[in-house]
């Protein structure tokens, strides 16, 4: 469902000249799979996900989402994805219900289907008590819920989560991860970025460790543990990155 081939993205910086935020990145995500993009801050995770959601254009390489190329068919791509980031993007002066309804309409859902979906989503996410709360009055947890509701209101086949748990307490974060897990069981292709190893361990079927725009290593948790001879995932993450820092080696090839 997501197919990324040799994707690069660079920016021209006054101080540093041409800076690659993403360099020759290749991976794919299948339906019913949660793919984890793991990396420290500034690794290029957000850039990668922004290209997948068509707000940034790739400098080199190709990316396809739900069968559409992000450069040539951005509108179709946007129609087929749900994107959620740690920055919730909730309007202050709209209630939860109005906001999700608004996005549902933007996605072109017919009115009867929209009302049905709204009721469903609000029920599954247990948001019925906050449906008339204005954005400005919501707690972070409430905003996160509304944000998920907005992401899935049009029932997209591809879901992109960009550090969704940042700034959340353990309880809310756990509920969020549960929600994402249940989306997998519906057969969605999910890409999930984070810098927290434990979340990946819990949630992801496959992971890629990304650092300074390069994918350093990729595979299931077990594969990576074997390959790098390190059963503890936190240590594994640290090892891979420090090795790259020392030698500049990536370990994408088996």
């Amino acid at each position, binding site marked *: 469902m997501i197919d990324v081939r040799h994707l690069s993205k660079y920016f021209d910086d*006054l101080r540093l000249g041409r800076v690659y935020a993403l360099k020759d990145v290749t991976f794919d995500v299948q339906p019913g799979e949660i793919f984890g993009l793991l990396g420290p801050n500034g690794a290029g995770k957000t850039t990668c996900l922004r290209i997948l*959601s068509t*707000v940034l254009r790739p400098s080199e390489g190709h990316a396809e989402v739900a069968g559409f190329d992000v450069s040539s068919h951005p509108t179709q791509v*946007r*129609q087929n994805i749900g994107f959620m980031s740690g920055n*919730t*993007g909730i309007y202050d002066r*709209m209630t939860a219900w109005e906001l999700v309804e608004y996005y549902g309409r*933007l*996605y072109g859902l017919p009115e009867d289907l929209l009302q049905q979906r709204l009721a469903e989503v609000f029920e599954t996410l247990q948001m019925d008590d906050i449906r008339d709360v204005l954005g400005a009055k919501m707690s972070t947890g409430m905003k996160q819920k509304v944000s998920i509701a907005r992401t899935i209101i049009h029932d997209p086949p591809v879901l992109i989560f960009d550090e969704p748990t940042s700034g959340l307490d353990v309880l809310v974060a756990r509920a969020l991860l549960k929600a994402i897990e249940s989306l997998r069981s519906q057969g969605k292709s999910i890409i999930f970025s984070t810098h927290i190893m434990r979340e990946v361990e819990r949630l992801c079927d496959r992971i890629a460790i990304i650092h300074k725009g390069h994918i350093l290593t990729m595979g299931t948790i077990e594969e990576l543990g074997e390959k790098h001879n390190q059963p503890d995932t936190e240590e594994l993450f640290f090892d891979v990155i420090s090795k790259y820092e020392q030698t500049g080696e990536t370990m994408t090839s088996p």
Partner: protein
Amino acid sequence: MSWRNIRLIFQRETGDQLRDRRTLFMVVVLPLLLYPALGLGMLQMSLLFSEQPRTVVMLGADHLPEPPLLNETGNRIAEQWFTLPSDTETLNIVTDVDPTAAKEESAETDTDDENTDAPSETEVPFPDAAGGVDVDEATAETAPDEAEEERQVQLLAAREIRTRLTQLADLRKKQATLPEESPQAAEVVSQIDSLLSEISELFAASNIQVLIIIPEGFAAYMEAENERLATRSNEGAIAPEDRLRPTIIRNSANEKSLIAYGRVREALDSWEQAILNQRLEMANLPADLTRPVNADRLDLAKEEELAANVWSRLFPAMLIIMAMTGAFHPAIDLGAGEKERGTMETLLISPALRGEIVIGKFLTVLLFSLVTAMLNLASMGMTGLHILNSAGGGSLQGLGDFSVPPVAQLMWVAVMAVPLASLFASLSLAFALFARSSKEGQYYLTPLLTVTLGLTVFCLSPAVEITPFYSLVPVMGPALLLKGLLLGEAAASNLSWYLIPVLTTSLIYSGLGLYWAMDQFQREDVLFRESERFDLRLWVRHLFRDKEATPNFSEAVFCFVLVMLLQFAMLNVFSGALNSAPPGEQGMAMVKLLVIQQLAIIASPALFMGILLTTSLKKTFQFRWPKAKFWLLGLTLPIVLHPLAVELQQRLYWFFPKLPAHAQAALATLGDSSIPWYVILLAFALAPAICEELAFRGLIMSGFRRKGRDGLAIVFSGILFGVMHMIPQQVFNASLLGLVLGLLAVKSGSIFPAMLFHFVNNALGVLHGNYAAMRENSPLLQQTTIVSEFGVQYSGWVVLLALVIAIGLLTWLFRSEKYVDAELQE
């Protein structure tokens, strides 16, 4: 693009703004409260103002000659001497004449020994002065005793001043007899000075605004004079310096005194005129003796036109300012505010197209701009009328009549509000989208506000009227048209055809603003700009370190700005040099200046920037040898376009404002036979062909082409080329030529055919300037040209032939394959 999405976004944004208390306050509450509050304030002020009439003390009022200057009670100047009868209320006259004249006498003797608190004065009752007469409320409210006491104090001070003035007059007489620079004279001068400062102190302390002293026996003297003049006898004539004259004392540095003096003067002047008339009548002389010319004046303004005059100035200005203000705040909130709050990215990931988002937001800003403007104007108008109705128009009559303009004219306000508001909405939205944060948005929008205010002030000037040219200028077009339309129905019918250009261009400008706003949305660096500290050193280093083959867009824009700034800066230097040239050599001086201007101001910036900021002069300036056919086009195109340009310019003669004098002088040089023809060609054809092409088809167009759209690069560089010529006629012509030049340079991949074109074109222009003189001896010219009111024109068949060939050649050029630089394509 789907209207459904636009409507969705528009509804959401509008609803969102309506829930925002700040916006609601700005748009609705403020205008509804502000003007009534301001109006009330003004009323209050004017009440306060009218409660404080100025005090004018008049000594010797019983010596006033006929006709009576004061009213019957003697506390006001008679109404008849004022243009506005109500002005009489603004001056409180205190005289030393009183019905109880005997007691007044005793008071006067008392004051001589400067005993102000003499008990006999305060006890004196003066019922008439305070209670019996119809005085204004303020005086009536204060206790009669108090008022009387004040009056006595003022009279006392006035008499003191009078005494000093007599001394002063004596001293001055004495001074005149003394030789200058003698010690006695110096002493007298110092005495005069101290007397003057004493008078000044007394006057300041007295709370008198104007003091009028009528000399004793003035009435008798005037009567005698009248008599003498009537009989035309010289018997008993008095030397001018000995004639009796009233003295008026005021302090023009004091505003109250100044205002009171203005009124006093008005009254005295008309009173004096009456006395003069009386005198003339007695002497059997015609009343208009003093006005030998006495022109007849006829004012054709109708009452509603006078009213319109005030509104026609006020409404366009208020409309512009309020439409701008109304757009300002919602635009920032919808643009930069949404970025700041992080909701923009979410919206960008939704299937709504960038265009739909921009148009939805634009419509919201437009709505708020319109509503703000309309509510403000309505509230202002209502308040104004209400105040006028309640206060009476009298005090404002000097400004014109304020009665309501007819509804039909008010409709124009609504009609013109739309183009103005849509221009402001699109521009401010584009600026706001470019900004990272609300704060930045305010910084970017402030210059827009300033420019708009400048244009508004310009439009306010009564001398500025709509012309075909102004009708195309943003903001000015709608504002001036509205001003004209509000001036009355007669004017409106003449102006209605301006609606077409004004509305069309406004639509185009708003469209451009919207296009720009949408372009912001396509730009990643604008959407996801990180706050970075601007480091000038780093930036300069980057400029020289990261040089590329051709300049970039900003460098091209900078080059143009530099050329324009240099031109502006050198304006004075050049005109100074031109004016200081000896009369016979001005033509030559102009030629020299033109060459210097071309080299120093136009070519140098472009060349220096090319050398410093790019790695390849060849690619930047397209120094390549072109194919032969482009040489041919460069030679033939200007020849066939020339008759068309001449024709076009003459057809559009009416459109442009008249040429300024200095441009006409420059044109006159073309026909100056004292300058050799090759010098003229050098200055008017060769220098511009090389220098202007280096700048405009060289550096500037190369920079624009980096954006990847050659068509836009040609159009923009052509327009800038036109703008550089400053004179409206030339701006238009040069822009059109610029398009052809740009096309030629892009297709050929070389600057040389454009230079050839430019040279031939300008040379033909020079030649055309001489046609009138050459025509007599040239059968060819006699066949191909005709003489019209505009000068020498080409015959119809020449123009037609030129048109056909030009279309052919342009098509050939258009279809030619574009030169592609393989390396730059990388």
